[in-house]
């Protein structure tokens, strides 16, 4: 007979046994965790890319000094892409006698393709997201422009030869950072109004742009199609240009999530190994019988393998369904954080997850299968005849190989992989030892307690090895959950505290030197301390140690970007309070010699700078060379104006300079801003509060989603517990029956069992609380520069949650053993 036929025939009834359910659950959990994480990282990656695209207001932006030819639009249409056009040019607009220079942004319907426009109904009024663009004859004007013209919403202004009505205050457009150099405030108009204005003539300085967006693959195809045909002067900007930094962050998030998925995966693997052991053990009698009836070893192992694979497939199906359900849930959770509709996650993550789960199954179940194969047929006559235990080398070899294969997906670098694997082994060993220590301590204490307690604690101690594994598995699941639920809020609170009550919430930029005095007076008269003005000089770095920044080799890609971008320079006599010198010496007070420069540490590292390097800048057509004398650490969270490059006093003073400033303005003081922009229309005000709020909402939504993924880790811990209880269920059934036959009440047996699980839960909770606290302190110190304060709630939740969860799941797993009628059990034994 074919082993396959036998395997299929008996599969249905095998499914009813407890260890099969646990095995199935463990595989399903691994698949679900991986699918959900795969999906989540995919979404986060896309969200980051989208947000980067928002800066372009499109997925791809073609910039040209000439009118956009029809064939580009046709090409966009051909690839099924959305498109929009913009024309941008400077123009003086009039309102009665007043006039001001504006950057006219004429846009076609559909703009912006990515991101949204925000407008307000009055100056400094509440802003709202708006769909669409101004209707013909209407414009949305930057508040600064309105202040300069002295007009309000509803007023009419003159744009070239036509009169247009200001319909709203434009507070935000996604691509406002593009062409930042033109500091004239924006006037957003309908592109169809441009011809009537007569503003675009031969020789006008207009920047035309074609914006396209759509399916990633279609955008790529479009890109490839038009790339070669583009004239020299046309520039193309896509996500890659604008999102390198963002995607780095996404990469890191992806790694982090993948690692948490690996933890779920490893716990699932432990559950798989335990239940596979039980799976094999329960089949020994049948295998011995089959062998006595003449079945070969090959038949036996084939039949068991087929059943295991079928289980694996069933687990994959269940896991994928759960994974998809979680995906649906996460999509809802992330709604708002990710703008627009994201394409559904594909089958890719499911395929990967299924492959991973099957690898786990093979790696962790194989030793048990091989042991099963060696079951002596003699067992049909002598029940104590057992196959030799699988060799430790085989167990360690196959499981390590499986883990290595899986990790290699996340860390495709041999050395790193070895380090991570080694780290995991050491961590697992340390956790296991801690678990055993706890178990041993609890075993010791049993002399001091009553019968039920003694029975429970004796059980924990007797199954020392399995108990320790359960404590560690459950503890790990609990640790990550605690870390996210408590530590996240603790850290966010800590961060807010570190910002301080009077952290600036508004930035002022583009302040002319002569405006400083009068701006200080405006604030002082409103009862606000005069802000500090920090000089800003625009420059471009040209050479580092006489080598062009374009050709220089950089240790990191970010360094190249940093060196080649337009640089904002400042100078200072004294070190800002939000800065700290890491290396080198700050210049003497009153220093007025050769230009020196202090570089922010990360920027220095990315560009590969060392003290003594010479940086050459092009400032307003002149060259300035400065020697690097210090590296600084900057506390960006301070919301003070800070710079990557700070020069010594005197180095830049002769160049055109504007000033920036930051200050705290409460809601009730908003009117002062109105007087400010009326008096100083060229000054731009940026509201940090709104941005901060957005950041916090994104963080809390994202961490909620991550937490959902961590629930899998806890579930995997529960699976380990179930597997462990399953592996002792016969023993438990017999013991319970024995005790009850001896006259012990069912309730006493039950409290003994609950004591056992409570003890395990306590140990797991203790491990988790200690682990989460240590990790939190490390994270706070190393990553966030915060002092972590002890949170008693974390310990209460850790210990309480541990005891409750382990008791509940342990009771469910073991209740069959406690409730079985003693007579049946003893007769069967």
């Amino acid at each position: 007979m074919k082993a396959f036929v036998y395997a299929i025939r008996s599969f249905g009834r095998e499914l009813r046994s407890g260890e099969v359910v646990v095995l199935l659950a463990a595989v399903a959990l691994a698949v679900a965790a991986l699918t959900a994480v795969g999906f989540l990282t995919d979404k986060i990656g896309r969200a980051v890319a989208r947000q980067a695209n928002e800066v372009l207001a499109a997925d791809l932006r073609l910039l040209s000094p000439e009118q956009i030819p029809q064939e580009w639009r046709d090409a966009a249409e051909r690839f099924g892409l959305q498109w929009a056009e913009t024309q941008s040019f400077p123009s003086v607009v009039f309102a009665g006698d007043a006039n001001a220079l504006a950057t006219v942004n004429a846009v076609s319907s559909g703009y912006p393709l990515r991101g949204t426009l925000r407008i307000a109904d009055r100056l400094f009024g509440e802003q709202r997201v708006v769909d669409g663009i101004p209707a013909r004859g209407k414009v949305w004007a930057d508040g600064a422009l309105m202040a300069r013209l002295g007009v309000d919403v509803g007023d009419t202004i003159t744009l070239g030869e036509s009169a247009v009505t200001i319909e709203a205050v434009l507070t935000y457009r996604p691509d406002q950072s593009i062409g930042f150099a033109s500091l004239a405030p924006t006037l957003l108009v309908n592109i169809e109004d441009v011809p009537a204005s007569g503003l675009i003539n031969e020789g006008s300085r207009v920047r035309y742009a074609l914006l396209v967006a759509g399916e990633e693959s279609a955008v790529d195809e479009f890109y490839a199609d038009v790339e070669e045909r583009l004239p020299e002067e046309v520039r193309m900007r896509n996500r890659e240009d604008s999102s390198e930094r963002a995607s780095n962050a996404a990469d890191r998030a992806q790694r982090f999530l993948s690692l948490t998925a690996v933890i779920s995966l490893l716990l699932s693997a432990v559950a798989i190994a335990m239940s596979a052991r039980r799976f094999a053990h329960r089949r020994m009698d049948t295998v011995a019988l089959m062998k006595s009836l003449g079945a070969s070893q090959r038949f036996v192992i084939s039949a068991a393998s087929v059943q295991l694979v079928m289980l694996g497939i069933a687990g994959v199906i269940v896991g994928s369904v759960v994974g998809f359900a979680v995906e649906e849930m996460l999509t809802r959770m992330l709604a708002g954080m990710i703008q627009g509709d994201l394409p559904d996650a594909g089958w890719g993550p499911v395929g990967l997850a299924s492959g991973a789960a099957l690898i786990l199954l093979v790696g962790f179940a194989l030793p048990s299968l091989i042991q099963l194969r060696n079951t002596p047929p003699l067992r049909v006559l002598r029940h104590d005849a057992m196959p030799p235990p699988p060799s430790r080398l085989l167990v360690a070899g196959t499981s390590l190989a499986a883990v290595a294969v899986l990790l290699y997906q996340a860390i495709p670098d041999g050395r790193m992989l070895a380090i991570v694997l080694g780290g995991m082994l050491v961590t697992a060993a340390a956790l296991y030892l801690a678990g055993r220590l706890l178990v041993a301590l609890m075993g010791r204490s049993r002399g001091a307690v009553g019968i039920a307690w003694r029975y429970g604690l004796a059980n924990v101690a007797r199954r020392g090895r399995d108990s320790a594994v359960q404590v560690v598995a459950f503890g790990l699941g609990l640790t990550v959950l605690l870390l996210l639920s408590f530590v996240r809020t603790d850290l966010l609170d800590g961060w807010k505290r570190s910002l301080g009550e009077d952290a600036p919430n508004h930035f002022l930029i583009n302040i002319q030197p002569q405006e400083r005095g009068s701006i200080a007076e405006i604030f002082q008269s409103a009862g606000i301390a005069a802000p500090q003005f920090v000089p800003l000089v625009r420059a471009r770095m040209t050479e580092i140690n006489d080598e062009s920044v374009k050709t220089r080799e950089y240790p990191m890609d970010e360094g190249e970007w940093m060196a080649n971008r337009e640089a904002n320079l400042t100078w200072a006599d004294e070190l800002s309070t939000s800065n700290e010198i890491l290396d080198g010496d700050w210049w003497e007070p009153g220093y007025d010699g050769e230009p020196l420069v202090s570089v922010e540490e990360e920027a220095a590292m990315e560009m590969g700078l060392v003290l003594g390097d010479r940086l050459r800048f092009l400032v307003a057509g002149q060259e300035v060379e400065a020697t690097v004398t210090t590296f600084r650490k900057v506390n960006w969270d301070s919301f003070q104006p800070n710079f990557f490059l700070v020069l010594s006093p005197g180095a830049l003073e002769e160049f055109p300079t504007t000033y920036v400033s930051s200050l705290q303005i409460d809601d009730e003081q908003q009117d002062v801003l109105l007087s400010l922009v009326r008096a100083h229309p060229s000054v731009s005000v940026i509201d940090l509060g709104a941005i901060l709020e957005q950041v916090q909402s994104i963080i809390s939504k994202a961490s909620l989603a991550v937490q959902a993924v961590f629930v899998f880790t806890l579930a995997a811990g529960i699976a380990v517990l179930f597997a462990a209880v399953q592996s002792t269920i016969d023993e438990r059934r017999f013991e319970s029956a024995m005790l009850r036959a001896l006259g012990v009440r069912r309730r006493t047996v039950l409290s003994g069992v609950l004591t056992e699980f409570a003890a395990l839960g306590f140990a797991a909770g203790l491990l988790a609380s200690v682990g989460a606290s240590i990790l939190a302190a490390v994270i706070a110190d190393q990553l966030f520069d915060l002092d972590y304060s002890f949170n008693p709630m974390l310990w209460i939740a850790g210990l309480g949650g541990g005891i409750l969860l382990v008791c509940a799941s342990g009771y469910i797993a073991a209740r069959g053993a406690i409730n079985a009628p003693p007579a049946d059990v003893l007769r069967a034994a």
Partner: protein
Amino acid sequence: MSNRSGKNNAVLAAENVSKQVSSPEGSLTILSDVSFSIGAGESVAVVGASGAGKSTLLALLAGLDLPTEGRIWLNGASLTELDEDGRAAVRAASVGFVFQSFHLVPSLNALENVMLPLELAGVDDPRKTAVNILREVGLAERARHYPSQLSGGEKQRVAIARAFATEPAVLFADEPTGNLDSRTGDLVMQLMFDLNRNSSTTLILVTHDRSLAARCEREIALDSGRLVADSRAAA
């Protein structure tokens, strides 16, 4: 080599078979220098007190275990020279079992349990053969029932059907009535002897039930691992 020809005619033969196992107290001899041969169609009871070595002898004769010393032939094959799969193949072709605790596969129904050895031996149309033999043991209407749905006597009848299904050269029965009440036990044994008579199967019955042993043609008695008597019932 004087008894060589005898072994060739015998369906089952043991020659100087000993079995030692290691235990915490040192090496333990379970069987010592046991020799006999059994012809085709014989019914033989192996008797002795608990611990006399009956079950060990049965395990060795069926190739479930290997002797420490000596040789065993079963239906022409030298079991002691075969590996585990080789011995399994011999069992598939020539051996049937009836056990004290029935040993039905719990996940297969009665019919499938009976089909199992037929399928392992590669018999054509195992279902038809299995249905027929289940009818012979009076369980045709129970064919679809799982072991957990059958009484002890019914289980043993399924086990007997399974044992005879392949028309084995040798049928080993290990205390087949040990888990049954005496009335059911009698019925089951009657069935087994009837089937044995109707086929040319050799029956090796391990028991400590004297009356059961008395129904066999021959009795081999063991005591502390030694063969102490080999007697034929008066014809």
